[in-house]
């Protein structure tokens, strides 16, 4: 049984700005942030969700933890649907599943010192025996993420980006969770710090048998951290498979475009000679009909403009949503 299973998740944001707005616009505006997404994460796996901004990957992350209520679909955690959890069950679930948020600093309360931030989950779940133990536990957690004791007295704005990120990780680890959703945990970090964070996360995964849902736009780190990758475009998964497969044998034109801009430091090429995909991601308010990628796709044909492709298995364990393969 998969640890986490997402079935046909949909999340539409409705811009409903009162009666007048409706009159003027002939109905509310629907933004399909996530449109029919399904995947599974096995225990101790890392599923990376990659895509450009606005593709809905963060929405997926938040839905999986039930931080937002999905419009439709079901999320199973250890086989139980978290959408039907009552208060106690939800609290228990929150003990098990943690999140590391994208912006290292804004995810820390600016008026809390690090000690308060890291110990907050312990307070919430009543895991504190007494004060001294608490401080010990905080120091232990900080130590785990490579911060010394003195950081426990600092405010978030006194931390560097990497330190703030580590504090966020320490907080996520405080309850010894099984499952962590990492929403772009390395964006905006310097290379040396980024690598340290990546190493740390990988080490922790091995040590504590953690399962990650890893949201990212950095393909290099995805390659390093994950063993499965889902590529999202405009609220949909266009391709999902093993990491190795996707790097060596991707099938969807968008994946191809995305990976074409990827270059290793040892590659010898330059931008002028390189083939580059045109255009930008369309607005999710008004997505193109048919395959949403078709206006930018060099292979697109008539069918792409009309019919929306379904996610189908092109080979075992490799799914893609493209008419080219049907």
């Amino acid at each position, binding site marked *: 049984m998969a640890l986490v299973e997402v079935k046909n998740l949909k999340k539409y944001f409705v811009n409903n700005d009162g009666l007048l707005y409706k009159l003027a616009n002939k109905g509310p505006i629907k933004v399909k942030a996530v449109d029919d997404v399904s995947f599974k994460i096995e225990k101790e796996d890392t599923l990376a969700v990659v895509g450009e901004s606005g593709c809905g990957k963060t929405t997926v992350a*938040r839905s999986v*933890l039930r*931080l937002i209520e999905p419009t439709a679909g079901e999320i199973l955690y250890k086989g139980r649907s978290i959408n039907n959890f009552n208060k106690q069950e*939800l*609290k228990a679930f*929150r*003990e098990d599943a*943690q*999140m590391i*948020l*994208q*912006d290292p600093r*804004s*995810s*820390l*309360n*600016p*008026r809390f*010192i690090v*000690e*308060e931030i890291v110990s*907050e*989950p312990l307070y*919430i*779940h009543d895991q504190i025996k*007494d*004060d*001294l133990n*608490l*401080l010990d536990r905080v120091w232990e957690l900080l130590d785990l993420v490579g911060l010394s004791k003195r950081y426990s*007295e600092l*405010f*978030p*704005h006194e931390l560097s980006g990497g330190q703030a990120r580590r504090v*966020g990780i320490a*907080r996520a680890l405080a*309850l010894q969770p099984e499952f962590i959703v990492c929403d772009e945990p390395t964006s905006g970090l310097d290379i040396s710090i980024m690598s340290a964070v990546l190493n740390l996360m990988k080490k922790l995964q091995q040590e504590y048998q953690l399962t990650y849902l890893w949201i990212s736009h950095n393909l290099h780190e995805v390659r390093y951290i994950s063993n499965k990758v889902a590529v999202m475009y405009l609220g949909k998964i266009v391709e999902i498979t093993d990491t190795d497969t996707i790097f060596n044998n991707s099938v969807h034109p968008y994946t191809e475009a995305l990976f074409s801009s990827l270059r290793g430091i040892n590659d010898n090429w330059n931008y002028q000679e390189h083939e580059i995909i045109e255009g930008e991601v369309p607005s999710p308010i008004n997505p193109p009909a048919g395959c949403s990628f078709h206006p930018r796709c060099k292979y697109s044909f008539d069918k792409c403009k009309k019919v929306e492709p379904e996610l189908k298995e092109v080979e075992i364990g490799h799914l893609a949503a493209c008419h080219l393969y049907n």
Partner: protein
Amino acid sequence: MFKSQKFFRFQKKSARVIKIMKKDYKAYLGGSVIMLILISAIFAPLIAPADPYKTNVTKRLEGPSLQNLLGTDSLGRDILSRLIYAARPAVLVSFGGIIISVIIGIILGLLAAYVGGILESIILFIFDVIRAFPPIILILVLLSIIGPSLLSVIVILGVTIMPRYGRVVRAETLSEKEEDFVEAARSLGADNSRIIFKHILPNIFASVLVLSGMDMASMIMWEAGLSFLGLGLQPPLSSWGVMLQESYQYIQTAPLMILWPALAIMLTMLGFSTFAESLRVALNPKLNQEV
């Protein structure tokens, strides 16, 4: 044991704020004015050189002398003593009024932001109706209905100002609710009460505190203004506004007399607003690195 840790943290945090404010000349100015007024108000009978109610019509309208440092008024009462005693209504009005507006404002603002729906519309509507009147005119009319007294001045000022807090609390709660750290707390399993009281309120409280510093200045201003129009505090309470009004007709015979209450009002307002400004900078952990 448990408490001590919290207290320790509080101490550490306030020590930071104090450290920052220590470097700000505005904090010194505001702080000393507020202290002066509080001391005057609390220890008036000990400080005041004379009985502020003691009349002596043979000594009326005298200039400053050793016996009456600031001179006497038209009934021969000691102006300095009256100034000191008048700090009491000033403190009562400003603190009382602000407590009323802040408490009602926070409750209504939080309700509006958290419950939403019709309740939110009703609360916002109440705010809008109160805000539809220019404040001083609303206060004037309300006072003429209830009748002027210390309590009614406090309540009316409080209610008139209240929508400011309600709206600020609502707006900030709505925006704080969207903040990443609130989201993070929710993902940790924090319930609404913890989020409101631990995460949202402390963050809002800074702006409420700063705003209330400024509003306390305006309350003193309004109270004095009402008294100046003959509608504020009533005798035997004498406020700076009452003194201002009483002195107004002597601006030719005893022009110094009007200077004292005017200075007291201005200094108090200056004190509250500079202190609030200094506090604003110090309480904002993001801003205070620059100072």
